[in-house]
């Protein structure tokens, strides 16, 4: 497998090269905005939400570098573990910061099962995207570029098979066969990555 940086998912790039600023920008964009939005939904003030977001991102980043990720599978449980650890650290941090201050409402909110589940569920959605991205990257490395392009135009850009065929100089059936094959390969890759 080609394991150059372009073949890796966002998290894979960050693990391999923690100083990759572009990847960090994408990481903050992808996860930070989401975490901030949940915090606001849970009733945190802007300043609190920003602090919590920074803490979660920092925890995710730190644990991503140290956690042993096995590419053969269990990607989801890996990311979920990171998220759970970040959450626990966040709670511990809030508890220390609010002891004696009477800020129990925020503490209760953060500690609630519902909030934790919401956090993990949203992380799961991001994980789905991450797994899919990783699977697609890996499949793309293995197939002819024309076949991948047929898949990209039809499945991702939403072009009709006939129009894609015309653009690529292929028969219409060749486009649909390529699309179907790529879909199958990606599904298989996702299953492998999830280790289920």
């Amino acid at each position, binding site marked *: 497998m080609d394991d150059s940086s372009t073949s890796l998912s966002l998290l894979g790039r960050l693990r391999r090269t923690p100083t990759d600023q572009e990847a960090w920008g994408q990481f903050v964009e992808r996860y930070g905005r989401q975490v901030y939005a949940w915090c606001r939904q849970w009733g945190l003030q802007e300043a609190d939400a920003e602090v919590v977001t920074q803490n979660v991102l920092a925890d995710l980043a730190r644990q991503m570098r140290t956690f042993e990720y096995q590419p053969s599978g269990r990607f989801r449980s890996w990311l979920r573990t990171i998220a759970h650890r970040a959450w626990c650290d966040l709670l511990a941090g809030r508890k220390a910061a609010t002891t004696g201050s009477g800020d129990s409402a925020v503490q209760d909110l953060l500690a609630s099962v519902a909030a934790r589940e919401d956090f993990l569920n949203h992380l799961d959605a991001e994980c*789905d995207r991450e797994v*899919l991205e990783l699977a*697609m990257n890996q499949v793309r490395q293995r197939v002819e570029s024309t076949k991948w392009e047929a*898949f990209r135009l*039809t*499945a*991702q850009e939403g072009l*009709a*098979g*006939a129009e894609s065929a015309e653009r690529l100089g292929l*028969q*219409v*059936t*060749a486009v*649909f*066969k390529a*699309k*179907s*094959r*790529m*879909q199958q390969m*990606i*599904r298989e890759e*996702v299953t492998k990555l999830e280790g289920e």
Partner: protein
Amino acid sequence: MPPCPDRDQLERLLADRLSGSEEHAVSVHVQQCGRCQQALEELTRRRDDKRGP
């Protein structure tokens, strides 16, 4: 134009399980048949919008 291939033939086309001559005939037909192209669009539509490509 010859009659449209049935769904089973289209599925076997996608799975690369048609004989050479059969695939040729289906390909020539589909090239000019909007209805068969639409059928292939549906067969290759996302099975699971949440997860699958």
